[in-house]
């Protein structure tokens, strides 16, 4: 009970901190919504014209008023309005958030499919060619920037195979599941490859550690088949650090999504933030960033819950 209360308080505190930070940072960026829209043409505005525009965007209000009216609206579910897109930010987010969540989940799945097996493979015989392969993959995953991998994959696939689903209009999972999966494949691969590296390393270390435990030796002595031993006893016990690492990576995934969504023109929440910043659409950026922060907090919560399920020791404490 107390635990839950503390959790709620710290969550609200975190979100408030994010709200203040993003509000202040946005206003610290030079250029206003007016100059962002009009560019150098803004120099030709007369004072009356400028005033009319400031009023329209609500920039004539004091900062304090702007902050609290936005936050107040936010609590009641009104995320603000995008003048550029002529849509409420809530509507925009309801369209873009599922896209990014789908992308993130796919990336995590791909990352786990790459990282865990390769990590186990690397751990199966240390300092062997397999281990070197694991090291190589994880090094590449950590060091190749997402934008480079993305553009390379795009041009290779487009030029050599004519495969470029992302050049078409975007299809959601419900409209056209097959096309949607095609469109998500490359971006998910790019994102997934980046996080496969830490997962691979964590898996390798965890497996090595678990294997050195007495219970593994005991189990093997008792004649548990090797495959069952590796999967149930070793992997099962190595899962805790892997889950932690995966949960952590999920947060970075939302950040990485900005670049990848931009290159593959995937209309997710990362692109929404980027467009908002470019256009100085304060309401869009502020609200979207808060939504992302909330998602991050929720994922952490979920990771905690998962621990308890997979590791009875955490439950007991």
């Amino acid at each position: 009970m107390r635990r839950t209360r503390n959790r709620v308080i710290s969550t609200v505190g975190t979100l408030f901190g994010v709200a203040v930070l993003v509000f202040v940072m946005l206003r610290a960026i030079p250029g206003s919504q007016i100059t962002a829209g009009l560019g150098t043409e803004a120099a030709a505005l007369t004072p009356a014209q400028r005033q009319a525009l400031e009023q329209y965007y609500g920039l004539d209000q004091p900062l304090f008023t702007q902050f609290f009216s936005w936050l107040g609206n936010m609590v009641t579910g009104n995320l603000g309005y995008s003048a550029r897109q002529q849509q409420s930010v809530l509507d925009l987010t309801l369209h873009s958030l599922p896209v990014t969540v789908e992308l993130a989940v796919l990336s995590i799945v791909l990352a786990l499919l790459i990282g865990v097996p390769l990590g186990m493979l690397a751990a199966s015989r240390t300092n062997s060619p397999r281990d070197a392969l694991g090291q190589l993959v994880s090094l590449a995953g950590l060091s190749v920037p997402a934008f480079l991998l993305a553009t390379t994959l795009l041009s290779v696939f487009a030029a050599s195979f004519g495969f470029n689903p992302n050049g078409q209009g975007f299809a959601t999972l419900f409209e056209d599941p097959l096309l949607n999966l095609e469109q998500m494949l490359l971006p998910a691969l790019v994102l997934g490859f980046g996080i496969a590296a830490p997962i691979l390393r964590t898996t390798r270390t965890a497996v090595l550690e678990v294997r050195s435990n007495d219970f593994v030796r005991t189990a093997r002595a008792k004649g548990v088949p090797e495959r069952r031993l590796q999967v149930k006893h070793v992997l099962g016990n190595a899962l805790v650090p892997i889950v932690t690492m995966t949960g952590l990576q999920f947060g970075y995934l939302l950040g990485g999504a900005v670049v990848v969504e931009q290159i593959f023109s995937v209309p997710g929440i990362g692109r929404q933030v980027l467009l908002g910043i470019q256009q100085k659409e304060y309401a869009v950026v502020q609200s979207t960033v808060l939504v992302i922060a909330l998602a991050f907090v929720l994922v952490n919560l979920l990771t905690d819950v998962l621990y308890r399920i997979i590791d009875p020791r955490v439950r007991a404490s």
Partner: protein
Amino acid sequence: MPRGALSAAGVAAVLSIALTSCSSSSGPAPSTGGGASGKTLVVGVTSDPDTLFPWKATQFQAVNVLQNLYGTLTEFDKDLNVVPGLAESWQASDDGKKLTLKLRQGVTFADGSAFDSKDVKSSLDKIMDEKTAAVARASLSSVKSVEAPDAGTVVLELTGPDAALPANLATVNMAMLSSDDTEDKLNTTPNGTGPFKLKNRVASQSITLAKNDAYWGEKPKAPAVEFRVIPDESSIVSAMQSGNVQLAVFNDPLVAQTAQGGGTITVAKTPQLNYHVLQLNAQHGDLKDVNVRLAIQCAIDRKQVLDTAALGEGEVTGPITAPLFKSDPNKRPCPARDLAKAAEYLGKAGKSGGVTVKTIVSQGEYATSVNEAQNLKAQLAEAKINLDLEVLESGAFVDRWVAADFDAAVALNGGRPDPDGSYGRYFTSKGNLNKVAGYSSPELDKLFADGKATTEQAARKAIYDQVSAKLEENAPWIWLFSGYTYTATTAGVQGFVPMASGSLQFLRTTSVS
């Protein structure tokens, strides 16, 4: 042996192969064209229009889309001559104080309502009203009032002759709107008299226009045009290679080269009205002295800037880039780089020891800015002129530029088909951008006034040649070069005519098979 691991890796491989192979069977993008003949033309663009309201649209993307939806009183043809649009003809009175326009009959808006003089009067009155914050307001500064004596006639009462007015009426910022429409309504539902109507818009993804069957002019060739937002220019190239996009306009010479490299894409180069310029602020410090400005003028090899920053893709230019009024870049104080002369000018200014010029440069607004600035810095250093570069994010650059808070600025400026439209607002003492230009003189004021008052083309050309000469002799800005835009099309695209203004108005004559 970790066989579990191996089988998991196998699953991943099978999954990716399966997904990839689905794609090859699904073939090219299905055409969503509504008409019986022809296919939807897909145009790749890097961003969404920032507004659908034509009077406030300055962003290139927005102008390109809106130009196909809205009609203007006059239009430009492919060579940038002013030709009839919604006005079939116009006639200035002998004293030049009255311009009478005869409107085209039988024109309707997209919603079916009729267009007449009442809509013209209401549009022009609102554009002139400061409260609407319409960006073209300054272009109507010579207009005192607008009368609509009958449904087919509009009379503009002017303060004096204004030869630039017909050209000024041709921009989409002067679009004719129905007097019943409001900005709020038009922001979501455009209602124009153009060759296309808005069919569908998916925010930040695509905007689709359908052919307007009631259009007064020649009907568009394609049943629909879709502007598809693909934020990255290289991603547009791959979309064209795989056949999902058929037309795109690039600014970056490197991207254009990549596009052409594949062999399936044709790239056409068009010289632009836009020009690259080093703007000096003649109100600031050492630059108040014309000799310092001329020293800078003489110390720069423009061809070198063009070659190093823009792969040589463009032409060295004088102030006026419009084809009918083009300045001769060889008629300037130092047509070729002349360091001795630069030193002489610095000596005259009493600055033989050198000067420092604080220069703002925008990053990200266009591809070549930083390279240009660095080359200029290197060249000027040899003449003891130190460019102190401040590279700014484009929002910050615009803020400083708008406030004229710089000694010098490396900029890419939009040119216009009429020199009065290009420079009247910068270099006349009452021009609304004069603060940014930082220079004006009674001679220039008079020349610009004469240019407006003269209607005969050869006489106007002579006047603007003098404007050009005055600008070069006083070197308020150092004109460098103008580049190209690159129109890339895939096989099967026909009838598109690129324009020096970068306009996509000829989408109406474009078809794709």
